[in-house]
């Protein structure tokens, strides 16, 4: 019985050793040995860049009659293949608003940090770009032309800006003259506010004698209740818009659209009747409003 037990034990040990030898053969020397040296090939594909942070501009205040460079646009791009895989030349920022010309600007890269780069962009806006909410989109490509984009919004301020002659030239005036028409004054809209939302208004006053203030060239004279008139056309200057003493009068028909062209308007003034007045200086201050 003891002998049988012993022989059984040896049989189990022999089987285990045999199993290990067989397994060892397949692991080390078999047709496809598990631990044999082999070439491992892994293809790493191009990873698309991503934009991880976008700082849109603070509200933009435009400069009257000239451009404004908006420099407060920053974005951070990341490429898993490394920051050097980002193509800096393709980085750009674009401002858009429905009905407006797109404004596109370039960006410069800061030194990379890990796999990211932060870009500082400059976009040039014009004085006539519409006020309100604009969209800003940033864009960059990597060396394989895979791209990343992101967008946000920002505000453009209202810009009320007129360019106008500081004096009105009434030319040669004789006492008793009628229908004296001024030279044209040119009004230019150098902002983004425009009529009719922002109408052009004029307030006229009597021309007062400097030495003898009791004498004047008044708005109301004799039978003429409206002695001063205005028009965008010299031919109708004495019959178009009647001005009222010290009262704001809208200059209807004055088109001053915002834009690089067509944003000017000529304006003529008429004095219906010059009274018989003394020899002295006559002056007044009129105000043009927007």
């Amino acid at each position: 019985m003891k002998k049988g037990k012993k022989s059984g034990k040896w049989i189990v040990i022999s089987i285990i050793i045999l199993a290990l030898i067989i397994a060892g053969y397949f692991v080390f020397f078999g047709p496809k040995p598990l631990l044999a040296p082999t070439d491992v090939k892994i293809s790493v594909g191009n990873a698309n860049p991503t934009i991880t942070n976008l700082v849109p501009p603070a509200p933009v205040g435009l400069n009257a009659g000239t451009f404004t460079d908006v420099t407060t646009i920053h974005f951070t791009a990341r490429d898993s293949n490394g920051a050097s895989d980002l193509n800096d030349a393709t980085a750009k920022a674009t401002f858009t608003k429905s009905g407006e010309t797109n404004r596109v600007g370039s960006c410069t890269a800061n030194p990379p940090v890990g796999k990211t780069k932060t870009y500082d962009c400059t976009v040039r806006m014009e004085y006539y770009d519409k006020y309100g909410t604009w969209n800003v989109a940033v864009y960059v490509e990597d060396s394989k032309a895979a791209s990343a984009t992101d967008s946000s919004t920002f505000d453009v301020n209202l810009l009320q800006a007129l360019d106008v002659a500081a004096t009105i030239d009434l030319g040669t005036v004789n006492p008793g003259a009628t229908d004296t028409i001024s030279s044209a004054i040119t009004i230019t809209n150098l902002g983004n506010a425009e009529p009719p939302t922002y109408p052009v208004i004029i307030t006229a006053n009597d021309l007062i004698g400097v030495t003898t203030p009791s004498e004047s060239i008044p708005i109301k004279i004799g039978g003429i209740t409206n002695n001063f008139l205005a028009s965008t056309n010299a031919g109708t200057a004495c019959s178009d818009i009647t001005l009222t003493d010290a009262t704001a009068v809208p200059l209807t028909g004055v088109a001053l659209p915002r834009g690089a062209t067509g944003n000017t308007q000529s304006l003529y003034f008429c004095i219906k009747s010059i009274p018989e007045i003394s020899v002295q200086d006559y002056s007044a201050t009129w105000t043009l409003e927007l």
Partner: protein
Amino acid sequence: MDTRTIKLSFVILAILLVNIGFVLSLSVSSPYYKDKPLEMYPGQEREILFSVQNCPSLAESCNAEDIKVVVNIEEGSEIAQITSGESYTIDYGSNENIKLKMKIPSSIAIGTEYSVKFTVASVPEGSGGVQLGLKYNVEFPIIIKNQSDIPIVQTSINTGNEEGNNIGFITIIILLSVVILIIAITLYKFVQKGR
């Protein structure tokens, strides 16, 4: 025409002939306007800026002189106050800020609407003839809302910071490795002592 009439005509002619070519170029930039109300909450105080410019384009047609400007509140003085003064001298080619301090009463009802209006007007410098001044009407509504309904002005939009997350992950791995190494060394020494 007698001598008196000729003299009168000449004098009035001399008076009303004015120099032309002098152009006034004044402008105002406003962050709030008719279509863009300012939203505030009861008890809130804040300052807003309006920029007044004198020919920033430096165009040759502009009068290369300072412009004197007067600012007047015409509406909304119960909540708005000009803190930067009523008179300004704007240098040629530069700009000045008008500071408007807004203060909403704490007891005001939600939904109340105010209107603030002020004017920015040039002060004519010349004399004689008809001087033309420029005036701008700056007007904007103020809507009172709950504080929670007023968005915080966000200057940075974060769409995720992947690089930051990776750095955090790597840091945790390194820390864990160090801890495991310390435990292993301690155990090894303990076993060595036991022998």
